[in-house]
Structures are given as C-alpha cells and as structure tokens.
C-alpha cells in the first residue's frame, strides 16, 4: 500500500446513519475476482436517484466522505473499501465505524477518522455552505482542519495503524519477520491437521 501522510481534498456530506457495507457495495458486485473497478458499484442502489449527494455536481471530485454514526457495519466485505478508494475517496470521517470495516480500511490505506457527532455535523454544514472548501486530514499530526474556517480537531488512531499508514507497510511482510516465533508456536500447537480427516478428494476418511 502507498504511504499516507497528509490528505487534502473536498468533502461530501452523506448525512445517513447505519450505512452498512451492503449499501456501500451491493452483493451483486462481489462476484468479481478482481480487486479493481468497484468504484462504479459504490452506493449503486442510491446512485440512480439524481438527487443523491454523490450525483450533485458541486461534490464531484470530493475525496473525503463525511458519514454518519455506525458507518460500515455488517458484512466483512473488503470490497466496500476497494469501492470507496476506486471511486476516489481517501478518507472517511464519521462518529463511529463497524469494526471489520475500519480494520479493512487500515490495510488498504483508507484513513478512517472518528470525530464526535457534533464535529461531523459542523463539517457537514461547512461543506454544504461552500463545497469547494478544502479539508485537511493529517495522519502525522492526527488532526482534521478546515483552514479557511480556522476549524481544527484532533483525532485518535491506534499508534500501530498510524505508523503503518505513514510507512505504507505490508502487514504480511511484518508478520513474516516473526517466522521463527510462528514456527516455535507451531511446535506446541494442538490445532488438528485436516490431512487426517479428509482425503485428496475431500471425502471424510
């Protein structure tokens, strides 16, 4: 994944709570074996509605999604993250997130910023007032700013997620450096091998 330091972009106010990952990317899109091209499926059930916020020209090209409470609950589909990023979003700001979605985001470099309900409402108002406004999400300083309004807030990210975002690190590479420890653990592990359970055709022995 690419390192992420400071994101600058315009915001788009979603103003809906409980947006689950089925809404972010409907399951019909999950049949694909590729990792790219999911942007067209983003919120696809809502995008037929010409008044839907992503269809409004003043928000075209926005890269920071302002979402409601409990964004990304439900299904574990990482396709939701791929769809948001493929569409052009680099960060999502919300009062709370689904655990698995937030975790998936950190693996792809999509920055999830948790702010209070009031702060997100304030951001919504500022962006609606002037959609061309720049928002700054700074992963180094852990802050969100709206420079022309003199507005800024700190946010919390667990230190390891922050470091991984800044370094663009591959989790697997990091864990494989612990291979000796994994091998030592396996020597004492009682996890039953499936080799004794099924034959080469998957029939129970």
């Amino acid at each position, binding site marked *: 994944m690419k390192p992420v330091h400071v994101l600058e972009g315009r915001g788009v106010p979603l103003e809906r709570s*409980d947006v689950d990952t089925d809404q972010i990317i409907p399951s019909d899109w999950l049949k694909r074996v*590729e990792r790219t091209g999911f942007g067209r499926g983003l919120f696809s059930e809502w995008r037929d509605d010409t008044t839907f916020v992503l269809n409004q020209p003043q928000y075209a090209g926005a890269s920071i999604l302002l979402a409601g409470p409990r964004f990304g609950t439900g299904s574990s589909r*990482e396709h939701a993250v791929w769809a948001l990023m493929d569409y052009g979003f680099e960060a999502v700001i919300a009062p709370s997130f689904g655990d*698995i979605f937030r975790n998936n985001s950190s693996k792809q470099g999509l920055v999830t910023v948790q702010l209070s309900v009031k702060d997100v409402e304030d951001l919504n108002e500022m962006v609606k007032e002037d959609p061309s406004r720049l928002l700054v999400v700074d992963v180094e300083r852990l802050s969100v700013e709206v420079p022309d309004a003199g507005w800024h807030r700190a946010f919390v990210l667990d230190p390891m997620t922050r470091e991984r975002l800044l370094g663009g690190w591959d989790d697997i590479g990091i864990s494989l450096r*612990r291979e000796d420890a994994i091998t030592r653990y396996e020597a004492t592990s009682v996890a*039953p091998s499936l080799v004794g359970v099924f034959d080469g055709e998957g*029939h129970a022995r």
Partner: protein
Amino acid sequence: MSGKTLYEKLWENHVVVAPEGEPTLLYIDLHLVHEVTSPQAFDGLRLNDRRVRRPDLTLATADHNVPTDPLATPIEDPISKRQLEALDENCKEFGITVFPRGHENQGIVHVIGPELGVTQPGMTIVCGDSHTSTHGALGSLAFGIGTSEVEHVLATQTLPQQKAKTMSVSVEGTPAPDVSAKDIVLAIVGRLGTGGGAGYVIEYRGEAIRALSMEGRMTVCNMSIEAGARAGLVAVDETTIDYLRGRPGVPQGDEFDDAAERWRSFVSDDDASFDLEIVLDATELVPFVTWGTNPAQVVPLSGIVPSPDDVHDSDEKNTVQRALEYMDLTPGTPLRSIPVDVVFIGSCTNSRIEDLRAAASVVKGSRVSEGVRALVVPGSRRVKTQAESEGLDQVFLDAGFEWREPGCSMCLGMNPDILTPGQRCASTSNRNFEGRQGRGGRTHLVSPVVAAATAIMGRFASPEEVVA
C-alpha cells in the same frame, strides 16, 4: 486475583508473540475459505511469490454464489461461474481441501465447520465472512476478517490483533415454549443496537442459553455481528461434547474422551469479571419480527409497526422514517396483518437440521398460502440428506414449498435466489438491510417456526394460528 473469562483463555493460548506497543500476533487454528472473499487474496500470494503456510489448517467450500437449482442445471451467470472456478483452481494450486458445488460435504461455511467436527472448542477460527462468529457456539474464538487478512492468514497462519473488551450477556430464566433461539438473539440485538457490541467479544450465558441445543447456540452466536461484536461465545458443556462425538473431524474412542476433558476447560472461571454485563429476563421474551432496515429494529410479532414519534432524537426519527418508507409500512399497523410475497427458510443463521424439523412440524398437513413463494434451502448437503432421510423434504413439498440445493441462497442476493423490487419476505436469515435479498426487496427477519406459519397464513403469523 480474579479468574479468567473464556475469551481471555482462548486469547492467551494463541499468542505467538506480543511485542511492546504492537498488536499481538495470534495463531489461527482453522481458516475457512469461500469463493467470494478469497480470489483477490490468492492473487496477492501469487504476486508476492508466497505460499500457503498451512494448507492442512485451511478448508474451502462454495456457498455464497452457488445456484440452489438442481445440480444438473448449468450456472448461467458467467461472473459467478468464473468465481467458483477460481476457488477450485486456487485450492488445487495451493493444496487446500475444497468442497465444490455438488460435493457431499459442501454447504454454507458456518454450517459445515461444526457439522464436520472441524470446528472444535478452544480453537481460533477465521473466515472472510462476518458470520464466522457462529463457531463461537462451540467455545472457540471465531471472527470474520477482510480479504487482506485472508491473505495474511494464508501466508502466515497468524493475524495481528488488538485484544477486545469482554461482555457477558446473560439470559436468565426459562422462556415460553414458542420462543426460539432466533427470538433470543433478535431480543439481544434489539437491546444492544447495531453498534452496542463494537469492540467487544460477547459471551452468552445463563439458564436460557445453557438450555439451547448446539444449533440454537449457533443461531445466537451467528448474529453477534448484528450487534457490532466480531465474536460471540458459549462455554463448553456436555451439550457441546455430545454434539461433537462421532463427527468426522474429531478424534474417536479414548482419544475423544481425552480431547473432551481438555475441551471442558473452555469455560469462564466463576470469579472472572467482564468489562460489561447485561442481563435479559427470558420470561419476558416473545417471538420477534424486524420491521425496518437494520436487525436492531425489532418488535414483537404481536406488536405494531412503530412510529417516528416513538423516538425523540431527530437523527433517530429520520432513521425510522427512512426505514418505514423503504419498507412501505405505516405506523400502527399490526404485524399480523402484513401480507408477504416470499418466505425463505435457510442461511447460516437457521438452515440446520433442527431448524428444518421445527419448520416442518408447523407446515405438516397445510398448504402455502396462494400467491406466496416459499423456499427451504438446507445449509449443507449433509443437512439435506439427513432431512430427506427423515421425510422432511416431502412434508415441505406437499405443503407447496420449494426444496432446494444447499447454499447461502436468498440471504444475500448474489445468486439467482433474489427478491424482485417491492417484494416482501419473511426470512430466517440475519440481515434486513436495504436491498440485501435483491434490489428493492423488503426483508423481515423471523425464526423458522414463524417463517413456516407465515408461509401458510400468507401474513406474519405464529405456529398456533396454523390449523392443519
């Protein structure tokens, strides 16, 4: 010093390394794989020239997008077909056991793990599917992961994890006979809300949980994620041990007794404390139905559709209003007066043999209401075979139900079993999100017996309303 919770025991047993200031590296005992969340992970391995570290701890099945039509019917959707082929090819290339469409062990991943006995107490289990929490019913730490993590587990058999907080949900007392495991978990999700369990692992406890069969416990643990919790647990007891005895994946004879002795330690200590403790009174529970577009929007079957005026918070009012509009419901309408178009009995929540037996006992001798499409989709080929040996298929067919091949089917709208826009469905599945069962479809979550009665009556109904 206070004792340990079951979660803490499971966690400690699987720590590979816990470096200061970094997430703990946790060992994974069983990795379950299906066609939807794995192809990009296998691609990642190939790109980086990595192998699967422990193919012998990895098991794959086709479930999400397999058609449930008769096996001779070809798969029409080329994209689905390609994904199913990719699973077979990837498993072959990396040496993983796979159960493709038609295989004797094929089925929904969360049905086959326990029924084959490869899900065992004390294990860590992951799968690229949020309903992996199901396996916690057997006293294992089981949770859903994303595709990047699937790739990570394939490559390392470990996952970097932050320790969760612990929550005890005790359901005390004996529920009325018409209250099923599904009603218990709908009550819990309704109480916690969709985010109440976030950051927690829930242990389900109390008399009403202990009294459940393993199938019932799986139904409860299955929907932990609907309250935001990644994992749910039930401590091991003799019900667990009896369920596992004789299954293909467990040791046989004396070795089984040795294993069982070890498994019995997977309980929370009496003096263990939880970060949060919730108590529900089982005697207050009734059959429930969801009315809205998230699984916490629950009302009693005997109740009415709620109104935005019932809530005070303005955001909450909007949420209720939006849900009512999507569901095309009017506040104050009795649930029992709402007609349905489709009834779906199946999914990783409610497609096990006990669920099918319960539903069959309701429909026996009756006919599905005219104009209602009713489907029964066994969770696995083994469940299907067992049900057929008991004559349940004939009970359903005689009543006018479709009796289909195993798979995820109408739970999630990514195979041919979908609702058409505007159709209303009583479903034994786990999610009533907008469009979940097909674009524009309207889902109401219910138990298998309520689904069965609803099919016969053509509107939401309880079994005692059905007179054969």
